[in-house]
């Protein structure tokens, strides 16, 4: 594909070796260790352990509560990814209009990204707390109705989704703006001359051209909703009510660090890991196929 290459077999490996070394030592090795740990019944974060083979996995497979956790994760992840990215793209399109002062909007929109998930959680907790939160106060003075945001399972899920989308909005918007600004305007003009309406122009030109960005954001958003959401759930709902927001990463954390079932937590890590890998592979197969990566 690229005619212009340098020669040498060992040189590129030398260039890659620091990266590979770190990845092998600090990512692959601990992951393998986690695999090993998942076949033990472990006490005290590894102080004592008994080999039990697939025992942890079998127990999870027989636990209806774990299926519930998986289901909750799927719902929350789907909502965050689809709705979050949809809103982000819409905002990015808006902010990418050729108007005066656009950079100011770009700067204003990034703010939520500068907060950690836990801090974002605290803010949302105060906004939505059923008894003294601002949202319920406004709602009751406008409509006379109050909602039990933390006590009602459906509302609690909704709250976590809203907070997570909000927190990640800045990140998505900025990436999308970057993607949109790099679209060659000539292509869009050519499409206009061809008589394409704004809708068609968007789908067949703009959306197609930013598909690599969408793909990249898809992966980061999925990992975000699988893992980074932890701080948010811990602060806002603690996995409740009635386990409604007990996502996989939170369940794993509780087993590992609150209940001292490290083997069980390791088994869940593996499941989570396999799930993310599986999802990403599916994406590579589907959306990824249209995305040309070169090289």
């Amino acid at each position, binding site marked *: 594909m690229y005619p212009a290459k340098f020669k040498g077999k060992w040189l590129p490996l030398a260039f890659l070796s620091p990266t590979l070394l770190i990845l092998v*030592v600090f990512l692959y090795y601990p992951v393998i260790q986690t695999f090993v740990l998942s076949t033990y019944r472990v006490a005290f974060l590894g102080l004592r352990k008994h080999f039990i083979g697939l025992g942890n996995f079998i127990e999870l497979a027989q636990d209806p509560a774990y299926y519930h956790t998986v289901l909750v994760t799927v719902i929350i992840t789907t909502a965050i990814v689809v709705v979050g990215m949809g809103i982000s793209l819409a905002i990015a399109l808006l902010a990418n209009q050729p108007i005066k002062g656009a950079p100011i909007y770009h700067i204003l929109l990034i703010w939520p990204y500068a907060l950690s998930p836990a801090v974002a959680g605290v803010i949302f907790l105060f906004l939505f707390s059923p008894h003294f939160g601002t949202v319920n106060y406004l709602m009751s003075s406008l409509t006379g109705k109050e909602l039990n945001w933390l006590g009602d399972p459906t509302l609690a899920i909704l709250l976590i989704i809203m907070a997570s989308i909000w927190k990640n909005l800045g990140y998505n918007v900025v990436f999308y703006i970057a993607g949109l600004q790099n679209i060659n305007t000539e292509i869009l003009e050519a499409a206009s001359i061809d008589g394409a309406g704004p809708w068609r122009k968007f789908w067949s030109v703009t959306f197609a051209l930013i598909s690599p960005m969408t793909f990249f954001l898809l992966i980061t958003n999925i990992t975000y909703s699988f893992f980074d959401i932890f701080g948010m759930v811990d602060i806002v709902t603690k996995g409740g009510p009635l386990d409604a927001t007990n996502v996989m990463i939170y369940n794993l954390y509780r087993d590992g660090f609150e209940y001292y079932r490290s083997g069980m937590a390791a088994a869940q890590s593996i499941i989570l890991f396999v799930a993310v890998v599986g999802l990403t592979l599916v994406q590579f197969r589907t959306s990824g196929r249209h995305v040309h990566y070169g090289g």
Partner: protein
Amino acid sequence: MKSTRKLFILAVVMVIALMVVAACASKTTTKTNPAQQKVVTKIVEVTRIVEAAPKENVPKGATVVNFWHAFGGGRKLLIQRMVDDYNYTHAGTYVHVENKGSYRDTLNAAILAAQQGNPPHLVQIFEVGSQLALDSGIFVPFSDVAKPSEYHPDDLIGGVANYYKFNGKFYSMPWNSSNPILYYNKDIFRKAGLDPEKPPQTFEDMLNVCDKIVSSGAAKNCISWPLHGWFFEQWMANMGAELANNGNGRDARATEVNLTSDAAKTIVKWWKEMYDKGYYAYSGKLEDWDGSDAIFVSGQAAMEITSTSDVTNRQRDAKENGFELGTSYLPYPASSVRQGVVVGGASIWLTKGHPQKEMDAAKNFVIWFTNIENAIRWHKATGYFPIRKNSVTVLKEEDWFTRNPAYKAAFDQLLETKPTKATQGAVIGAFPQVRTIVEQAIEKVLAGKASVDDALAAAKQQADKAISDYNKSVK
């Protein structure tokens, strides 16, 4: 160009060298050999210089004692001040104090550090972590290290000393001890036409009082307390019911929890009635102390049940929001006799395997930290109990309780507690998990998803399994 290239190559070589060290060291995961250790320490030292973090002034030759605790907020600052006092007045010892996040974070960090052979000398551990701490095997009983003549166990208030005695040994030094009391807003009581000096004593009283408060519109809700297993445990003890079998886990390792007992059902039924009638309010989140505080402090409920350790804070809140605060005992069902409460809170544990000199320094610090004067200081600043009888005498001589009646209820409640296995508190290995199971069962009942009997039966099954899993894992 040439110099850039040289620089670049140098950088790459450095990075690769670093990686090689990392790789070599990581291969020897079980034991690091001294030579490599040296190289690594060198690197660590170099980065230390680069960091140039402000060094604490550790006096030369002083024995350093590391002390980890779980207090954030203003209490962290108070502890730092107390430790500074100690360091200032005790040459030869330097106590290094660190806040390690929540109770759970602190215990986790200590266990992880112990696995690396480098635990802090002193760790604050919450009461439900006691069995975990015992089983972890990283701690040494306090009474093995200190002589009674040094730490005066007889001077400790009965209930406080009881909790931390396991297998006849005094394991850890009680520090922050508390139990739940009733706080109430006297202004709302007056508004509802109730006697502000007569807070409800029993479950039945509570229902009557709440009816008046809510129906008169004096407050939106009657009472709040966090949906936390701790309150359930306290009510069990107050009725003289043991939470776990085998003498609440004190005669032998607990294997079952008594969640289907009549006492348990009485508590949850009352809780449910309070909730259904709109008297009881909580934020909707489990273990949400702040949520209940907010409901009470903002005047949306006339009463709150929470820890005695909040007396000082709650007094400040009442003053700021302009209402008169009262405190009273934890209510109990009229059908039973009030037995008293379990001592909650945490104690200081000593880890094994330090040189004698450090052990002595750590022990001496703990003795000082919990002595008469410091127990008073700690009590006045927080509302946690003064754990020493002599501290109480001093406080009484100062007329402290007369001048600060809010502290009195907390204290009397503890003194009147009858020393039984039930009020001594349960010891369960899987306690953190059992707590969550109980909370979720109550949550289910309140939400109307299960009857009291069904929810408790299911919870018992889950909890017993958790306990058996735990017991298997520590064998």
